């Protein structure tokens, strides 16, 4: 192939490769310029929120912001004004329609003047449901709508459960392990509501409306337990995250393990997030104590890992928010260093503005008719308007870059093809006349004789002698070839070694250069 064509052939192949990669990036959706920005709408001081929810609690058709910490329960209106605030000792709260007015009420389990008590906050009015309860320090509280009617279930720091009727009458008690209750959730079995409860020592139990055990088990120390009916078949899946990294999915029906994986770090949070917008599958995100983030999809009881990511510190909160209004939720995660990151459905990460202290709670909802993201850290609660921006048509930039690179490759090929071949540096100026060839032959033989004489006199030894001899004999062979080419008669005096290709004198029975025995 011509020397001028080869660079263009190589360039063509490279251009095809470059454009193929560019097309893959463009049409595979790998090239994106997207960002999520958060503008602070209002902020109020509120320290160490434990529970937070945007929800309508005041009966005015507008959602309010409910928030609770270790010593207070407060309700803000959409503009950040306090509608309700009351201090409690060690309060734990849950939301549920206790009085049947079709509006959520706040149930507060706390230590009162008359012992452990339960208050109901309805439309800003506080009423006490029960007092002097025989239970310990508050750990969790839940309102469960059993088939026989709603119950308020309290869990304390020693693993004890106490169920109350809506009028505050104790119904049943149960002991789950011997440490703090870390999870209290409603789990469905054949469409019927049951209670799933887990304590820090790893005990896990599913109870019926009478406090009867459906099944129970134990595993390594637990940090988190949540129950979801992922496939809407009326049977929930119970997810647990262990202190030593065990992530287990149980079937609520019989306690069988559907999925288990070691995460390599303690599991600090588990939340459901609709990451792919596909209604037939459900997704959930798991956060780790060392900042690990894992997304899973569950469909027909089969759990599939989707992607992994990371934050720089303990994941303290996960929330699913459809920031860009495309019908799929983004996972908004907060960590203990104050970072708030938005993970999109494919796992790409975008940071929102950092907070100066660790994030405790994140929620989303409509306040004053606008959709906001509410972020609580160790000192403040902040209401943000989160915007999604992307550069239109950016997905095609790989094609533009590919064209630029291809143009450069083409220019380089053209330049390299325009450079002439470097001339051969071993040249021979040879006259083809018979006299000249004969004279050259004589000269070469004289030179060979000279080399032999030098060897005999000891002036030249070893490799230098052979190298010089080899070159002269090769020239002699060339001379013979020139004789033959010109059609002059010539007595051939050289042969070629079949092993090394070196030229030898006719009649030699061993190659001087490589030692090959010759049978000619």
């Amino acid at each position, binding site marked *: 192939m011509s020397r001028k064509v080869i660079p263009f052939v190589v360039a063509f192949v490279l251009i095809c490769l470059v454009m193929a990669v560019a097309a893959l990036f463009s049409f595979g959706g790998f090239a994106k310029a997207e960002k999520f920005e958060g503008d602070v709408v209002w902020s109020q001081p509120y320290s160490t929120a434990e529970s937070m929810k945007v929800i309508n609690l005041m009966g005015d058709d507008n959602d309010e912001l409910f928030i609770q910490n270790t010593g207070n329960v407060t309700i803000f209106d959409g503009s950040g004004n306090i509608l309700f605030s009351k201090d409690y000792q060690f309060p734990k709260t849950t939301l549920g329609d206790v009085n049947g007015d079709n509006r959520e009420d706040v149930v507060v389990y706390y230590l009162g003047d008359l012992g452990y008590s339960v208050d109901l906050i309805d439309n800003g009015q506080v009423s006490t449901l029960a007092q002097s309860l025989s239970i310990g320090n508050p750990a969790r509280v839940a309102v469960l709508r059993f088939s026989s009617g709603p119950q308020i279930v309290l869990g304390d720091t020693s693993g004890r459960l106490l169920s109350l009727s809506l009028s505050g009458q104790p119904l049943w008690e149960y002991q789950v392990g011997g440490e703090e209750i870390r999870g209290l959730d409603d789990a469905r079995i054949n469409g019927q509501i049951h209670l799933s409860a887990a304590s820090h020592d790893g005990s896990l139990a599913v109870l019926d409306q009478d406090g009867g055990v459906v099944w129970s088990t134990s595993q390594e120390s637990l940090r988190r337990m949540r129950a979801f009916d992922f496939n809407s078949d009326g049977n929930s899946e119970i997810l647990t995250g262990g202190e030593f990294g065990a992530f287990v999915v149980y079937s609520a029906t019989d306690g069988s393990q559907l999925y288990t994986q070691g995460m390599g770090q303690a599991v600090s949070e588990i939340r459901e997030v609709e990451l792919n917008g596909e209604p037939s599958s459900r997704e959930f995100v798991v956060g780790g104590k060392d900042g690990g983030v894992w997304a899973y999809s569950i469909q027909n009881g089969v759990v599939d890992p989707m992607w992994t990511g990371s934050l720089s510190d303990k994941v303290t909160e996960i929330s699913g928010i459809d920031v860009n209004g495309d019908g799929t939720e983004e996972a908004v995660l907060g960590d203990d260093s104050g970072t708030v990151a938005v993970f999109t459905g494919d796992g790409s990460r975008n940071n929102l503005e950092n907070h100066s202290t660790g994030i405790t709670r994140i929620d989303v909802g409509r306040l004053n008719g606008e959709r906001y993201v509410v972020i609580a850290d160790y000192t403040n609660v902040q209401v943000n308007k989160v915007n999604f921006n992307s550069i239109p048509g950016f997905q095609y930039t790989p094609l533009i870059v590919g064209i630029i690179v291809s143009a450069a490759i083409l220019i380089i090929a053209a330049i390299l093809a325009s450079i002439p071949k470097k001339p051969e540096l071993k040249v021979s100026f040879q006259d083809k006349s018979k006299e000249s060839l004969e004279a050259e032959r004589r000269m070469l033989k004289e030179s060979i004789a000279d080399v032999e004489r030098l060897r005999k006199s000891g002036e030249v030894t070893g490799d*230098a002698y052979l190298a010089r001899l080899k070159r002269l004999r090769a020239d002699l062979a060339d001379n013979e070839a020139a004789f033959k080419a010109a059609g002059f008669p010539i007595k051939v005096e050289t042969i070629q070694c079949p092993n090394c290709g070196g030229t030898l004198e006719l009649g030699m029975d061993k190659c001087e250069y490589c030692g090959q025995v010759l049978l000619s």
Partner: protein
Amino acid sequence: MEAIVCGGGILLIVVLIVFFYLLNTARKRVTETNSLGKKQLLPVYISLADKPTSIIQGMNKLRLDVQKTEKAGDKWRWVPLMIFFAGVGLMLVDGILLLFGYFSYVFTGGGVALWIAAIVMARGLRKSDSYDFSTRYNGTRDILYTLRDDLKPGSTFLGHLDLTGSLLPTKVARTSKDAQSRETEYFRDEWLALKAKLYDGNVLRVSGIQKSKKRKSYWKRSRISGKMKSKPEKFKGTAQDLKVRIVPNPEVYKIAKTSNEFKQGLNIGKFTISQLSTEGGMISFVANSPFEDVDHENILQVLKSAYTLLQRKAA
């Protein structure tokens, strides 16, 4: 943070290496030297078996071809550096996007691709570079030009011009070891071999031989620390021998016994006549020069002086 600083440092070093490689390509090639500090020269080997004009034209053409290739490459020397900066420009687009809060790697990827293309081009251009021709190349051409009219009509110059280097392993004539087992190599480089049948019937044979000496590198134990140390190879010196044999046409010349202009021990230019023999109807002599390079004028001067030993017979 440490990982970022470390990675960034390595990246910066790589970028600087690429930049200076391309900058050196862009600038005119500097003279390269070998391990002994000798200037690298173009390794040319020419077999001579042609008429003077053909040889001289061929040598001129070879020089022109080498220069043409080099000049063709010289024209585009700045292009790789420009492509490098185009790559930087593309990467800056990603930087600007980052300033606006968008994270993109597309333009950076394109920039890296351009850098690779620039390196490939720079390598291609460097291949068109050539070392300088040895002064012996022009000198030999001038000798052939000077002797062109003295050549017997229709005959050719025979021999070779070997400028591939005087310190090649194939040119080691012998080796020796001293008391400390240090090996010294003796090189014999017959860079010029020329035979010509002259107009007056004489036959002239000229050999230009460079003899060099080099001590090979060796390991030595330090007397103070006891550590083994490597000593580099050392160039111990070089000298030129000019071996000439003139076989005069006995019908035209007789050889004089002595000549004041040509006798043993006489200095002619950079040469000293060290051996001289006029026996057997031929003049054989060796002229030495302690210089690494001798001018072609000196060689011609020696040949001219040697002719003073020839006395034309009466017609």
